[in-house]
C-alpha cells in the first residue's frame, strides 16, 4: 500500500521508509515561526529549556502581525519581548512594523516555505502553506519552543480525507466558497486530527491566492493540515521565491484515503458562513437582505492581491453604503504596493473604504474595526465564533471578497450580481 503526500513528507522527515496513520513520529522541522501573541510565551518556554541558542537561526522567523502596530501598552510590551529576543540571538528573519505582513501570507511570499518541507507555526492557520505541497501545521507556544531548541517535533500521522473538485467554476465562486462548502458539509470537526487533501481539475481554474484560502481554512474543519500536490502552477510560483532548493513530493497512486469526497462545482453559488460557526454554510441568496454595519476585506484567508482585485471589481465606480464601514487590509506590504500600482487602493478610497497597514487586526477583535453589541459584519476572515471580532453580541458572516464588497455597497447581504448587474449587460 502506498502513501499520501502527507504521509510521505512525515516519513521523510522522520527518516523512516514508511509511516501509517496513527503512528507517532518525531520529525525534523525545516522552518518555524511565531507571531506577537504566541512568541512571548514560546520565548518564555524556550528559556525554561535552558539551551543557549535556537537550533538554526536561518530556520526561525518571527512576525509581528496580530496586535501590531501596537494597539495599546500591553501589546507594545508583548512586541518588545519578541524584539529583544531576536536581537539577543541575532535572528535574521524578523518582520516588524512596516516590513511585517500577516505571517502566513508573508512567509510564503518571502519563499520560506517550499514543496516537500515540514513547517510549523505557533498559529493555527499555519495549515495555509499546504497549498505549496508542504506539510504545515499550527502548534502551541510550548511545542514551538521545543522545536526551536531541538529542530524536531513529534506528530501523530494523520489519516487523509481527499476532496476532489470537478466541473466549471461559476462567476463569483472562489476558492473560499469551495472550502466553506466543505466545512458546511463535514462540520467543524469533520476532519479532526486528519489531513485534508484537495485535488481535481478545478484547482487549475484557481489562482494560487485562491488555493491558499482553501488550505488556510483546513483547521476550521479540525484538520491537522491541508495540502495540495504541487503542480506546475505551484512550482512556477515557488521557483523565483524559494530560499532553499527543494524536492516536490507526490502521493503514491495506491495511497490510502480514509474517505474521498467528490464535488461538482458547476452549479455552486457564492456562500457565506452564518454566525456563530464556520460550518453554518448557506448560499448568500438565502440570507440576502440581512442588514450590515461593517464589511472587512483582509486576513490570512483573503487579504491577497486576487481578493483585492475581486473587491475592486465590485467597488469600482460605486460608493460604500452610508450606513456601512468598509475596512480593507492588504495582507502584506508587497500586496499593498501592488494594489497601489494597479489602482485598487484608489478604487477603495474613492468608494469610501478605510485602508489599513497590514495586520490581522479586526479578525481577532484586536483593533482596526472591533464590533459593538448587535452589530453585523461581513468578513473575509475564517472564524465567526461568538466574540471573535468584538462584542459577544456582534454577528459575523464569513464570505469571499466580492460578497463582502457587494454587501458594503448594498448595505445588506446580496449576491454580487445584484450590485454588478450593469457590468454584466455591457
Amino acid at each position, binding site marked *: 500500500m502506498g502513501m499520501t503526500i502527507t504521509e510521505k513528507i512525515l516519513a521523510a522527515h522522520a527518516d523512516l521508509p514508511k509511516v501509517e496513520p496513527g503512528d507517532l513520529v518525531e520529525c525534523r522541522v525545516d522552518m518555524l515561526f511565531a507571531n506577537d501573541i504566541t512568541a512571548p510565551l514560546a520565548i518564555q518556554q524556550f528559556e525554561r529549556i535552558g539551551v543557549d541558542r535556537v537550533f538554526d537561526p536561518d530556520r526561525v522567523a518571527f512576525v509581528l502581525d496580530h*496586535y501590531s502596530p501596537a494597539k495599546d501598552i500591553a501589546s507594545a510590551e508583548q512586541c518588545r519581548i519578541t524584539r529583544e529576543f531576536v536581537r539577543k540571538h541575532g535572528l535574521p528573519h524578523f518582520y516588524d512594523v512596516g516590513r511585517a505582513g500577516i505571517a502566513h501570507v508573508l512567509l510564503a511570499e518571502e519563499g520560506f516555505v517550499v514543496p516537500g518541507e515540514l513547517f510549523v507555526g*505557533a498559529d493555527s492557520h499555519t495549515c495555509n502553506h499546504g497549498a505549496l505541497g508542504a506539510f504545515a501545521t499550527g*502548534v*502551541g507556544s*510550548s*511545542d514551538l519552543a521545543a522545536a526551536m*531548541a531541538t529542530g524536531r517535533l513529534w506528530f501523530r500521522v494523520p489519516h487523509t480525507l481527499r476532496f476532489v473538485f470537478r466541473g466549471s467554476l461559476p462567476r463569483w465562486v472562489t476558492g473560499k466558497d469551495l472550502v466553506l462548502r466543505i466545512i458546511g458539509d463535514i462540520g467543524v470537526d469533520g476532519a479532526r*486530527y486528519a489531513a485534508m487533501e484537495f485535488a481535481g481539475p478545478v484547482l487549475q481554474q484557481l489562482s494560487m491566492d485562491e488555493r491558499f484560502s482553501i488550505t488556510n481554512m483546513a483547521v476550521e474543519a479540525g484538520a491537522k493540515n491541508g495540502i495540495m500536490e504541487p503542480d506546475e502552477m505551484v512550482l512556477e510560483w515557488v521557483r523565483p521565491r524559494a530560499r532553499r532548493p527543494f524536492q516536490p513530493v507526490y502521493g503514491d497512486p495506491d495511497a490510502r484515503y480514509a474517505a474521498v469526497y467528490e464535488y461538482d462545482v458547476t452549479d455552486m453559488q457564492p456562500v457565506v458562513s452564518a454566525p456563530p460557526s464556520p460550518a453554518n454554510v448557506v448560499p448568500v441568496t438565502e440570507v440576502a437582505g440581512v442588514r450590515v454595519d461593517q464589511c472587512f476585506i483582509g486576513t490570512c484567508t483573503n487579504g491577497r492581491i486576487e481578493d483585492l482585485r475581486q473587491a475592486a471589481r465590485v467597488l469600482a465606480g460605486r460608493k460604500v453604503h452610508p450606513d456601512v464601514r468598509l475596512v480593507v487590509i492588504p495582507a502584506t506590504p508587497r500586496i499593498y504596493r501592488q494594489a497601489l500600482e494597479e489602482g485598487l487602493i484608489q478604487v477603495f478610497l474613492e468608494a469610501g473604504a478605510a485602508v489599513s497597514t497590514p495586520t490581522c487586526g479586526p479578525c481577532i477583535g484586536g483593533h482596526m474595526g472591533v464590533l459593538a453589541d448587535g452589530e453585523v459584519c461581513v468578513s473575509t476572515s475564517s472564524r465567526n465564533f*461568538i*466574540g471573535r471580532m468584538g462584542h459577544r453580541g456582534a454577528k459575523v458572516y464569513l464570505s469571499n471578497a466580492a460578497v463582502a464588497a457587494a454587501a458594503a455597497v448594498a448595505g445588506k447581504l446580496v449576491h454580487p450580481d445584484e450590485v454588478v448587474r450593469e457590468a454584466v449587460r455591457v
Partner: protein
Amino acid sequence: MPIRGRAHKVGDHIDTDLIIAGRYLVTTDPAKLGEHLFEDLDPGLRQRIRPGDIVVAGENFGQGSSREHAPLALVGAGVSAVVAASYARIFYRNAFNNGLLLLECPEASQAVQNGDELEVDPETGQIRNLTRGEAYQAKPIPPFMQELTRAGGIIPYVRRKLGLEAS
C-alpha cells in the same frame, strides 16, 4: 491522587476564543488570563468556578486558535481537569504541555449535570459522580502523552532529552 471538584457543563465545539477572548491575549500570566475564562460564553461562569472544579464539555473542546493562553486560562482559574467527549488537536497538545489534565469520556460528557460533585483518578481515568452515585471510564491516555505528563510537560521532556535534566 484523585482530583475532586464540582462540574461546570459547557456545550459542543467550545472554541478557544470562548475560553479566552482575543482581547486578553496581551499577557502570558495564567492568573490574569484566568480572570476572563469563558467570559464571552457566559459572563457569570467565571465567578462560579472554585479552585479544583472540573469543566465538563461536549465534542471538539478547544477548537480554533492555537493560543496556549486557553489552557493557561483554565489553569489560572483553578480548573483541575477537563472531561469532554472529544478535543480539538492543538488544544489537546497545549493542555498536556501545561500540565492540565484532559479526559476523553463521551459517557461522562452526557451523564454529568451542572454542579455534580466529581472525583477523577488521573492514573486510571475513572470518573466517579458522587452526586449521582455513577462511575464512568475515560479513554486511556495515549502512552506518549502519559510519558509527557510524567515528565511534567514538553519542556522538562525536552530538557531531559537534551541531557539538561536527570531522568
